[in-house]
């Protein structure tokens, strides 16, 4: 729990939220949260699998899932496939409201980003994500592990 608190800092959560707004702005403008995908994962997966290998990416993601489901219990129903994609959100349709789904996605992405920062440091993580989301206005300070906003 201690490391969980360090990894998913408020700053990391804020960044995760911004990335998801960027990916699917309609989720935040009209509340139509997508139940059927983890789009951020589909953005990250090919890039990080090229870099780390599928096994490497799966390892990062599985740890992020374990850390995040302590905060958001419904994430325990999510399954990781052999290629690193995530399934299981569809089955939860009707049981979760949009805010809960959003909260789970943010928690998971924040943990994943936290792991990257823990391994690579803020600067390298920022550069890496800048290649994946080149049009977002992230900066290196967003990945600071100090936790302040």
């Amino acid at each position, binding site marked *: 729990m201690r490391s969980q608190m360090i990894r998913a800092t408020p700053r990391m959560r804020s960044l995760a939220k911004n990335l998801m707004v960027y990916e699917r702005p309609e989720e935040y403008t009209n509340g139509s949260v997508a139940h059927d995908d983890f789009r951020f994962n589909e953005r990250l997966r090919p890039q990080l699998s*090229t870099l780390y290998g599928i096994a490497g990416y799966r390892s990062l993601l599985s740890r992020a899932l374990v850390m995040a489901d302590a905060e958001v219990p419904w994430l325990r129903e999510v399954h990781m496939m052999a290629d690193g994609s995530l399934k299981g959100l569809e089955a939860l349709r009707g049981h979760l409201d949009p805010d809960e789904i959003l909260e789970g996605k943010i928690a998971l992405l924040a943990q994943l980003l936290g792991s990257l920062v823990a*391994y*690579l440091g803020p600067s390298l993580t920022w550069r890496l994500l800048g290649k994946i989301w080149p049009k977002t206005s992230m900066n290196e300070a967003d990945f600071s592990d100090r936790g302040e906003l």
Partner: protein
Amino acid sequence: MRKRAETAGAASPRKGAGKQARVTIRKLPTGVRGLDEILSGGILEYSFNIIGGEPGCGKTTMAHQIAFANATPDRPALYFTVLGEPVLKMLRYQQQFSFFDESKLGGAIRFINLSDLAMTKDLNAVLEEIMKQVKEANAGLVVIDSFRTLARKASGERSDTEVMSFTYRLAQFLTGWEATTFLVGEYFADEIRDNPLFTMVDGIFWLSQTSERNSVVRKLQIIKLRGQETVPGLHTVRIGDGGLHAFSRTLGLTGNTKKLVRRRYLSTGVPELDKMMGGGILEGDSLLVAGPSGTGKSTLATQFIAEGLRRGESGIMAIFEERPEGYTRRADMFGLKLKAAEQKGTLETLYLRPLDLSVDETMQEILDAIERVGARRLVIDSLVGFEMALAPGFRADFRESLYRMIGALTGAGITILSTVEVEDTFTGMPFSHYAISFLTDDILRLRYVEIDGQLRKVMVVIKMRGGNHSKDIREYVITGKGVVVIHPRRTDYNGLTTGIPQQTGPRRAQDDEAAPEPKANE
């Protein structure tokens, strides 16, 4: 190659045409300090090389340095990782080095993990993926790490053939695409003879590490490099903040010889000693001051440096026994203002006592300092301390390395004063327990002698390669001004060199000397 071309040209009327037709091969910088000098300029462009050695020698770091030094957005470096160190960890550790330029990642340098492919498919699939990536990126530099692990993928009777075929096709393809290639792999020395891979590659960069007693020493050897001359032998390698640093056996001093048109005599800072030496030390000479503990070797060395500073000649003091503060404090007492010179940047005092030091590293430190301050005088105090500061494994090479350094520095016109402690015997007068006198142009021997119920000090110039010198044995004291030669040669004693002379003449009248001897306090 060059010789053959010249010979052919001399016998042929098409001499000029032959020269024009010869291809100019560009040399790429390695990004590894000292390595370009070992490689006579750098890595040959489009060459197919292997960086081999046992685990932990710095192979991956070297490959990274080469990649970062050469990768550009137009001709990126592709770093393929295969079943070796996870990239996440690789990036985590490699970013600690100063050469690691994050801005190149993802653009000029691209990491591609082939582990999944290698685990699920055969070598043909791996080759196809490499070819696809190289074509797409127009890669100028390719690294495959670890190639050894990839080669192990092949198994069964056909494995050798399969690996050879894979390597051959890879080499052909990458050469065709004008990529300079480095295969990184954990190999052992005895494999070089038997593994055909080593025959196929253009260059073999071999890293090794050995441990002796408590020290570990890393070495680099360029076992093979087609079409290019290299500095032969084993070169010391150190891994520091900047990555690998190779210390060429020539210390980067090849071709650095500066012919002094007219050599001056440099004052030692002790006027009577200058007279004994026929005017002083010849510029560009190496003087060895040998004597037992307490005879004033360090004091003399300080006077030599201070005299140079007075005359506008910058200096370096490489000290191995005493702390710099002690040195400076004593110099102050002699009225030699070393601190001011240090602040002015005309003097640098190097205190070199780290463990596991190699001779080449020490010498590099000294050479760097000489370059920084533009030194004309160098003190090494002492050779015994220098040797003791070395890792045990390097001590065997001490004399050879010292020979190389002294030869190179004096060749460049730098005047060196080295001290060495010798134990006084009462039967002879050894110059040193090393056979190092051949290294030096001049030798000054200090020793204790028993005279009139006192243990006094005498000095004698044993040898001066550059000219004649006094044969007198002169008594000296160490006063508040430093070493001071006090008497003309003694004719009333025989056997001064034994330390227990025989009085042969009437006792010379002399002033009573205050006890203790008026020596500068520490």
